[in-house]
């Protein structure tokens, strides 16, 4: 009984220990377990010692061995078995239990074998568990990767099962539709993300896919989808049919194409806008083209220029291949200008009603013709062009057809009603332009006529002087300017030369020239000095003609008897003097202000001598001024051109114009006046108008010639007086006869002066008092006087031999 109690206590200790280890095994360190197991071995060994040699008790070691094999690696378990063997061996040795070997083998061997088997079993179980865990891990990884791929896909990825229920729903789908994966999976797609109107179509497609033979990959649909918030969008679904484990699934990507559509729309809108802008620009261009037409139409130019300009612009505005303007005149059309086409060699005027333009003119309505035949056009100008489409529009001014505007296109252009409308607009402007040009041309002609009428149509015959002048109007399109010149024989024999330039153009300038010219002539004929004449002109200009006007002027008075010149320069370019044996030089200095700039300027009067043989050249700035060039360069050319050139005034003028005025005219009017003091020769002849005013000129010439002949002052005076008597008679004869000029011829034979005064009037016998006195004067003053009346007129020959030398 006592032994049993001891055993129970020991076994209880061992049981408590075992229980402790069992419960705490997870939290005990390995060495603590070893100690606990070893302690168990010791307790059981003591228990066996108490219980004596009963063969059954050593079986209790099985507990220890099983624990050791469970908790420790096999070799450590075997170490505990060895410890058990050692402990029990010692017990058997000390206590001398019967058949110790058998007992030891039974007590140690049996649990060892059981332990080893359990250990093997455990090892296999562990290995299998690890493998399973590995597989599970790999699966998890794979799934995560797929999930990641699907979730990172920009497009929604949805898989449906055969019933149309959602089985896969990726992150993009969450974002796109607003449903989480948890919410979406397991629900039917049709109800979740399709608007009601798309559902039947979806079902139909799904059925078709499911029923179709075999698998499907990447079929695309455009579908209207619905988001969680009810908004819809256009999506593109790319759907496949796959079989997994005998089940059919429909995986598909859904791509939101609303952005793409929006961009597409934007692009389309942009294209539309661009088209609209292009249209607007085209219209703007057209409008500016029209404006150009108006500008061209209103330009101050000749009809020819304006027509060819307009036709070019009309062609540009319409974008046509060719354009022509026909001008109407008395029921006929003539081709004014054409652009684009080749101008036919010869063109006959086209009567109204004949040919395409003629029909337009007759109908007074726009006409359009497609693929016209040459017969239909009936106009070589058009027929030559090989046209596919033609529009003709009448040009109408104040109810009259003034012309026809025709534009032509070749393939593939076809004119439409829009083109007709545009051409009508253009035609209005062209008609305006033509009208304007015609009015302008008329005005231009009037101004030109006026201008021409103001210039001397022929220069006076100036005995002993040669004078020539040229006036070139500016190139055709420019207006008539205010250039003018004049040559004024002043009673007493002097000659006035004028070269002037009134600022401004056109009619106003021309009429200003008219006033200046008559005023200057009046002042000059009154015999005022040049400075006085110019001063009076300025006063007139300032007070009468308006302060806004300005004019430059050179007024030169030459006394042919001795070549003395007095002159005034009111702001004009300097005259050029060509003296004998000297290079040409400008007469600088004495340049006063132009007329019309100050009320009381002082005009400086200068003088010089124009020797026999020398020339004076006056001109306007149009001769030397060129756009973009320095006027000094132009001036510098004059001496060069006339350097060793011709001597006669008309040749001087022609040479200047020839070298300085470009082909087609200068940009401004050009006036040139040249005068030469012709050296006296032994012979002279001059014609004078049969007016008393001519007498002084004749005397002036005669004095010069007699000075040339070395006559003394007295001889000169007497011969001049005698010739004056003959000339006075000649004027009287002409007055009765009809106004023909009389001639004075002078010849010098050695020292004998031989002068003939011839008239073509009716001879009258000298009256007793006056004319008789004239004849007797002649006879008294000359060596010989022969009067020869003929049926044509009277000739008086006066001769006298000179004695002294005049010292000239």
């Amino acid at each position: 009984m006592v032994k049993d109690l001891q055993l129970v206590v020991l076994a209880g200790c061992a049981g408590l220990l075992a229980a402790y280890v069992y419960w705490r095994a997870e939290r005990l360190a390995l060495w603590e377990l070893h100690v606990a197991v070893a302690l168990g071995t010791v307790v059981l060994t003591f228990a066996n010692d108490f219980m004596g040699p009963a063969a059954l008790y050593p079986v209790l070691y099985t507990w220890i061995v099983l624990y050791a094999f469970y908790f420790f690696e096999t070799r450590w378990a075997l170490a505990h078995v060895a410890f058990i063997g050692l402990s029990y061996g010692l017990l058997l040795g000390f206590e001398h239990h019967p058949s110790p070997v058998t007992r030891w083998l039974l007590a140690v061997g049996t649990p060892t074998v059981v332990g080893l088997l359990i250990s093997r079993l455990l090892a296999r179980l562990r290995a299998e568990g690890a493998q399973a865990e590995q597989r599970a891990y790999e699966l998890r990884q794979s799934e995560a990767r797929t999930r990641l791929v699907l979730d990172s896909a920009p497009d929604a990825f949805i898989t449906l099962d055969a019933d149309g229920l959602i089985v896969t729903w990726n992150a993009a789908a969450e974002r796109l539709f607003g449903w989480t994966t948890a919410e979406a999976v397991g629900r039917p797609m049709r109800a979740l993300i399709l608007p009601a109107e798309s559902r039947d179509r979806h079902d139909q497609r799904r059925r078709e896919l499911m029923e179709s033979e075999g698998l499907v990959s990447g079929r695309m649909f455009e579908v209207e989808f619905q988001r969680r918030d009810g908004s819809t969008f256009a999506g593109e679904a790319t759907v496949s049919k796959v079989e997994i484990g005998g089940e059919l699934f429909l995986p598909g990507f859904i791509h939101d194409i609303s952005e793409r559509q929006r961009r597409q729309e934007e692009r389309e809108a942009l294209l539309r806008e661009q088209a609209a802008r292009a249209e607007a620009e085209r219209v703007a261009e057209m409008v500016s083209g029209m404006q150009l037409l108006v500008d061209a139409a209103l330009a101050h130019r000749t009809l020819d220029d304006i027509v060819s300009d307009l036709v070019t612009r009309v062609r540009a505005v319409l974008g046509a291949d060719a354009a022509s303007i026909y001008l109407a005149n008395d029921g006929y059309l003539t081709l004014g200008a054409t652009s684009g086409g080749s101008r036919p060699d010869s063109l006959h005027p086209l009567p109204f009603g004949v040919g395409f333009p003629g029909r337009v003119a007759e109908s007074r309505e726009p006409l359009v013709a497609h693929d016209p035949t040459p017969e239909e056009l009936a106009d070589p100008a058009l027929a030559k062009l090989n046209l596919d489409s033609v529009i003709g529009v009448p040009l109408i001014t104040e109810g009259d057809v003034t012309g026809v505007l025709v534009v032509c296109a070749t393939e593939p252009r076809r004119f439409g009603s829009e083109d007709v409308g545009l051409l009508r607009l253009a035609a209005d402007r062209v008609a305006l332009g033509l009208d304007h040009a015609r009015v302008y041309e008329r005005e231009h002609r009037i101004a030109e006529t006026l201008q021409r009428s103001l210039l001397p149509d022929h220069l006076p015959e100036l005995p002993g002087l040669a004078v020539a002048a040229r006036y070139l109007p500016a190139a055709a399109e420019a207006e008539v300017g205010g250039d003018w010149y004049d040559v004024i024989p002043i009673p007493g024999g002097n000659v006035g030369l004028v070269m002037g330039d009134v600022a401004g153009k056109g009619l106003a300038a021309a009429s200003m020239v008219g006033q200046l010219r008559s005023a200057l002539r009046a002042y000059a004929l009154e015999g005022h000095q040049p400075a006085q004449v110019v001063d009076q002109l300025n006063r007139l200009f300032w007070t009468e003609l308006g302060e806004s006007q300005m004019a430059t002027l050179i007024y030169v008075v030459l006394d042919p008897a001795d070549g003395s010149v007095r002159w005034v320069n009111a702001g004009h370019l300097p005259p050029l003097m060509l003296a004998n044996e000297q290079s040409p030089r400008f007469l600088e200095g004495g340049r006063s202000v132009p007329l019309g700039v100050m009320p009381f300027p002082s005009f400086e009067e200068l003088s010089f001598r124009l020797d026999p043989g020398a020339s004076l050249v006056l001109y306007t700035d149009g001769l030397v001024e060129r756009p973009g060039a320095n006027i000094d360069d132009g001036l510098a050319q004059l001496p060069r051109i006339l350097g060793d050139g011709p001597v006669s005034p008309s040749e001087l003028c022609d040479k200047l114009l020839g070298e300085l005025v470009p082909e087609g005219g200068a940009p401004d009017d050009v006036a040139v006046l040249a005068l030469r003091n012709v050296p006296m020769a032994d012979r002279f002849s001059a014609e004078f108008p049969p007016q008393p005013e001519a007498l002084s000129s004749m005397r002036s010439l005669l004095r010069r010639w007699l000075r040339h002949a070395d006559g003394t002052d007295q001889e000169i005076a007497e011969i001049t007086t005698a010739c004056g008597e003959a000339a006075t008679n000649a004027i009287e004869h002409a007055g009765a006869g009809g106004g023909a000029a009389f001639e004075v011829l002078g010849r010098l034979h050695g020292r004998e002066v031989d002068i003939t005064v011839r008239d073509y009037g009716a001879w009258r016998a000298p009256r007793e008092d006056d004319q008789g006195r004239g004849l007797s004067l002649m006879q008294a003053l000359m060596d010989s006087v022969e009067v020869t009346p003929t049926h044509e007129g009277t000739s008086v020959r006066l001769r006298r031999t000179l004695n002294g030398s005049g010292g000239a």
Partner: protein
Amino acid sequence: MDDLIKLDTEQRGDLVIAHVSGELDVSGASGLGDQIFDSVPTSVHALIVDFSGLEFIDSSGIAMLFGLARKVAARRQEMRVVAKSGEPVARVLDLVDFDRAAAIHDDLDSAIADIASA
């Protein structure tokens, strides 16, 4: 009046002096004669035509001068002409024996003196 010829008249006491300058031909002669005659009031004693400044005279000028002399004489007024001898004008006056109609003096002073002494 033509600007070839220029006329200035002055009255000195009972004298009228007509200074004529320029050139006297048919273009100015008749007008000048009337002008001079009109400038001579009937009250004055004499007319002196001063040709000192005249450069040229022809037969129409002479005719004018003869006519003027006649009209002045008809009013019983004296007339003298001043023209420097040797000059072209005096030469012409000499040729036509103008001194038959009126005395010709070299200078104005002698003409005035002549009238005063007459």
